[in-house]
């Protein structure tokens, strides 16, 4: 489909320019990944896959990010719903606060969380008293991941809830559905894709995080639910590898992490789309 009007002689030139600009950005996204894989080569990737240390770091990262996404959905979806459906005083302030974690550098997130949760202040002492380890533990990793990533769940689910037809909800109510039934049977299925997208973004953000971990949880000691050996998050592990063993070793582990992330992405998208056949018809296509 084109929007070219009859006699628009500049149209081919404009289309060519658009294509070049779009292709440049796509190239910028893809080329470094291709370079990474070429540079690492099969040998380094196989080495990383065979390394027990990296496998533990990868497993830990998937575990922590999975837990973080659960918290992100639990806390983020209700906030997204409230922002989509209700008008209340201070609403724009709340919306701005949701954007704060996206705005501030994540090394600073680590420092701020360190200060807040330090057992030397009353709040940190109270949390420590609950028996939830934060420093150098999975608790701290999950905390950082939720902090830097939950905004994506809030923002995308807010958009998704907004796009749900309010008349469909009213029709459901009139047909006998309680507010909860209407939410579960009408609102949630239509907002589902948005929530999945937000969760995926949050997950990717959490896996790619490093700044906050460097401050709060550089080394990970076992604590529930992680019972393995002392490890790092995959990102910190790769950073360590880079500074101690060099760029080739780091490239192998990096390529493996990219593959793991892509696998998660493809699997989630596959189930998302097959479960939502209706989105492929008409204007949803």
């Amino acid at each position, binding site marked *: 489909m084109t929007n070219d009007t009859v006699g628009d002689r500049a149209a081919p030139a404009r289309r060519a320019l658009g294509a070049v600009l779009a292709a440049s950005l796509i190239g910028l996204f893809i080329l470094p990944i291709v370079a990474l894989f070429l540079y690492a080569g099969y040998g380094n990737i196989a080495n990383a896959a065979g390394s027990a240390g990296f496998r533990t770091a990868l497993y830990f990262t998937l575990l922590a990010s999975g837990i973080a996404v659960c918290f992100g959905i639990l806390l983020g979806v209700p906030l997204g719903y409230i922002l989509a459906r209700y008008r209340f005083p201070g609403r724009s302030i709340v919306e701005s606060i949701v954007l704060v974690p996206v705005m501030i550098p994540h090394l600073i997130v680590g420092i701020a969380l360190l200060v807040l949760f330090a057992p030397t202040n009353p709040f940190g002492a109270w949390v420590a008293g609950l028996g939830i380890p934060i420093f150098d533990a999975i608790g701290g990793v999950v905390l950082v991941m939720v902090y830097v990533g939950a905004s994506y769940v809030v923002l995308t689910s807010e958009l998704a809830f907004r796009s749900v037809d309010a008349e469909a909800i009213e029709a459901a109510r009139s047909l*006998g559905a309680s507010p909860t039934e209407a939410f579960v049977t009408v609102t949630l299925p239509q907002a589902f894709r948005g929530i999945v997208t937000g969760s995926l973004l949050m997950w990717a953000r959490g896996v790619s995080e490093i700044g906050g971990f460097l401050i709060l949880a550089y080394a990970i000691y076992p604590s529930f639910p992680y019972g393995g050996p002392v490890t790092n998050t995959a990102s910190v592990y790769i950073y360590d590898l880079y500074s101690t063993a060099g760029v080739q070793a780091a490239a192998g582990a990096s390529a493996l992490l990219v593959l793991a992330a892509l696998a998660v992405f493809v699997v989630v998208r596959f189930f998302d789309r097959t479960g939502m056949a209706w989105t492929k018809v008409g204007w949803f296509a």
Partner: protein
Amino acid sequence: MTDVRLSEVVVDRDRFRVGPIDLEIRAGSATVLLGPSGAGKTSLLRGIAGFLPLRRGVVRVDGRSVERAPPERRGFGFVPPGLGLFPHRRVRQNVSYPVDLRGTPDARARVQRWIDRFELSDLAERYPAQLSSGQRQRVAMARALAGEPRALLWDEPLAALDVESRDVLLRLLRELIESEGIPLLLVTHDPATAFALASNVVVLDEGRVRFQGAVTAFPHAPLNRFMARFLGFENLFSRDDLLAAGNGLLPRTLLEDAGPGGIVVPDDALSWTPASSGSDLARITSVRWAPRGWALTLRQGTMAFYMHAPSDSSPLRVGDAVRLDLDRTRLRPLAAEGAS
């Protein structure tokens, strides 16, 4: 057989108040809420359905007052103007929605009955986005009825439909009213829909009832300016208009027959003959071809008349002089503004 009765119902909307309104919708009859956009029709319907709180008043269904119940316990089948179909459910799943909620034993048969009734069998596995607007209307209707409502509340059912789908839907609605005996309350801005379906009409304007009664009495109801405009009359003259038009025979005659709000000269009260000389002549100021023949604008002094001429009448040109004749029995005096 259900009756719905509204007593002194008032709904507050942002800018103004709708009502008070008393209304009785009997089983097997349709009542149409008619009025221009912004008249308060939709607010009233939403108030009855439970989506807007009533300021005061009582809504009774079979004698039981429901105005404090949530929408799902009122037993109305409310169809919003956009229909509110579920985009993620197939046609069959849309229709079965109210049945699924209650888990009735004969669910399949009931759903199939409505799917057949509205000729949706071939479309049952499609999603709403794959349907035409007429088909979507039928799904909405089947779904509302599958819930076995005590009354149907429908906001602008025929909006955005082509003539053919409109006729199909009107036929279905008429059959439904007769066979199911369900009271129907329709909101529309289109008088033609009201005439095609309703046994009773309520005309709302700026939240107030301007006419209420049998549809047969509607065209003969005392007219005020709003009602006359709403019914499509074009030649409206206030008493001041007529006084300002001078001392000619036409304005004098009209003034004699005018009511407190002035007078309406219906299209069929006017006739004309070509004339070249004489006093009190009118001139043709525009000629336009319209489906019914020629649409003319004539001007006599300060008064402009719109009328139609048959397509086979002698050629008419802008500037031609004609003599206008009035059939005084067809003139409609206007009541004062605000009266009904």
